[in-house]
């Protein structure tokens, strides 16, 4: 069918240079983070801030290392909720978006509904889901899904609508079927925008899961944090924040990785860096 060849890394001239620049940028960012943490540690010691108000980074690290088994268990639980909510929102959101693009009736009905619903604070619905679906995994998956669903639908619709009319004229003039036009034009055209939506959705799915856990759960990082908070165990609260942040970063970058594997026709990061250098 499609004649796309795998694009191996063609050694562009600016490539190695650009990569070096990207690496240097990241190194600078990491150094800034380390400096910030060091300053926090120092100030907390010098000012003798009590750990129930603001624990020192070293205290948080001790907890992270010492109770890793606890974190691992609840991390797995929360990750399951996030991934399930995210995947369900793709599985439902993308077909809904396709329906909106292709059916005028679906468009007028659901798009208006979706835009209106967009205004509802989804987290405010979390208590309902816990009420309906119980304290288990399902209610968190539902909240994560609900909050991740909208950016996926909206971005997929926008992406598929961004097709230039000439592209449609061209393919139709060759006698392309609606299916061919979908596969060869609309879908690939929409992919960059869709991945933009996926990234936002993944970040939101984490928020949804944790909010769900706050409301009613017996496992998960949000649950651990809630318990720690009611015990005034501030260092543990902070440790959970660290784990959640890491989870968010890893999952976001996972989507970014898939994006780079799928979308190979954009200027690569290294080339962008090289272009930025010359500006």
């Amino acid at each position, binding site marked *: *069918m*499609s*004649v*796309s*060849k795998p*694009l191996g890394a*063609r050694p562009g001239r600016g490539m190695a240079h650009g990569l070096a620049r990207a690496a240097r940028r990241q190194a600078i960012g990491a150094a800034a983070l380390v400096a910030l943490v060091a300053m926090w540690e120092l100030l907390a010691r010098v000012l003798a801030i009590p750990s129930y108000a603001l624990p020192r980074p070293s205290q948080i690290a001790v907890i992270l290392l010492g109770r890793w088994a606890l974190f691992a268990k609840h991390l797995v639980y929360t990750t399951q909720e996030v991934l399930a909510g995210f995947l369900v929102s793709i599985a439902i959101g993308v077909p809904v978006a396709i329906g909106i693009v292709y059916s005028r009736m679906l468009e007028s009905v659901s798009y208006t509904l979706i835009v209106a619903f967009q205004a509802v604070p989804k987290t405010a619905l979390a208590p309902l889901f816990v009420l309906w679906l119980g304290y288990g995994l399902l209610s968190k998956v539902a909240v994560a899904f609900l909050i991740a669903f909208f950016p996926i639908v909206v971005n997929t619709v926008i992406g598929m609508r961004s097709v*230039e009319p*000439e*592209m449609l*004229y*061209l*393919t*139709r*003039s*060759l*006698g*392309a079927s609606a299916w*061919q036009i979908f596969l*060869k*034009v609309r879908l*690939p*055209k929409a*992919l960059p925008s869709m991945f933009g939506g996926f990234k936002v959705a993944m970040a939101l799915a984490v928020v949804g899961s944790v909010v769900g856990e706050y409301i009613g759960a017996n496992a998960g990082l949000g649950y651990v944090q809630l318990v720690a908070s009611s015990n005034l165990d501030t260092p543990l609260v902070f440790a959970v924040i660290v784990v959640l942040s890491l989870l968010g970063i890893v999952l976001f970058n996972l989507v970014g990785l898939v994006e780079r594997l799928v*979308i*190979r*026709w*954009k*200027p690569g990061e290294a080339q962008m860096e090289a272009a930025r250098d010359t500006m």
Partner: protein
Amino acid sequence: MSGPRQLTVSVAVEDVHKAYHGRAQQIVALESITMTVRSGEFLAVVGPSGCGKSTLLMLIAGLLPPTRGAIAIDGRPVAGPYTDVGIVFQRDVLFEWRTILGNVLLPAEIKRLSLPASRERALHLLDEVGLAGFEDRYPYELSGGMRQRVALCRALIHDPPLLLMDEPFAALDAFTREEMGAYLLRLWHERSTVIFVTHSIEEAVALADRVVVMSPRPGRIVEAVDVGLPRPRGLDVKEDRRFHDVVHTIRELFKARGMLWEKTPEIAGRGR
């Protein structure tokens, strides 16, 4: 495809009207267009902006229905897309997710032609326009002129008997534009009927056998001017006396209708 294809086709446009339904009122884009394009002819269409040139091409391609009148290609009425056609637009509209080769092969894929044979032809066409070695690149890596050459190859990959070109070189600088004209003539080889829309009278005369001059909206055909310059032509046609005579004739046609630079004399010397 079934059997050896016909090299060229004739196009008959018979009393065609086209009105668009705008938000408030109807916009009559074309009014009573009648013309015949001979089989194998290179026809240029010039006319002011908004006179319906793009609309005319869409109608001929069967991508839009006429409000009135009929279009026939080789005697067969056009109803729905006429699929044996190559189209080049002002924007190259390359598919940015496809390699250069993938872009050129798109029509072959859609029409389910033999891919090995099409591949060979694609590589040959790319070579002809000076893009050998670029087949695995992506469009973002190419200049505007190179991209439009790819679009030209894409329009020709299935060897269509009819080529529709809508201001294909209008977005390019003057130098690249001349070059593109030369590439087009080289690839064309009088192997298809061409309808070429342009704003440049010089370009029309340099390339075409006949130039159709259109009036402002609603578009009507003012006159069809025979060029009569010999083929094969090179870039040196522009030094030919006959070339200047025809360009002059067409300019006078516009001037007589108060179009072009007569109304805005300060632009006359420039721009052209």
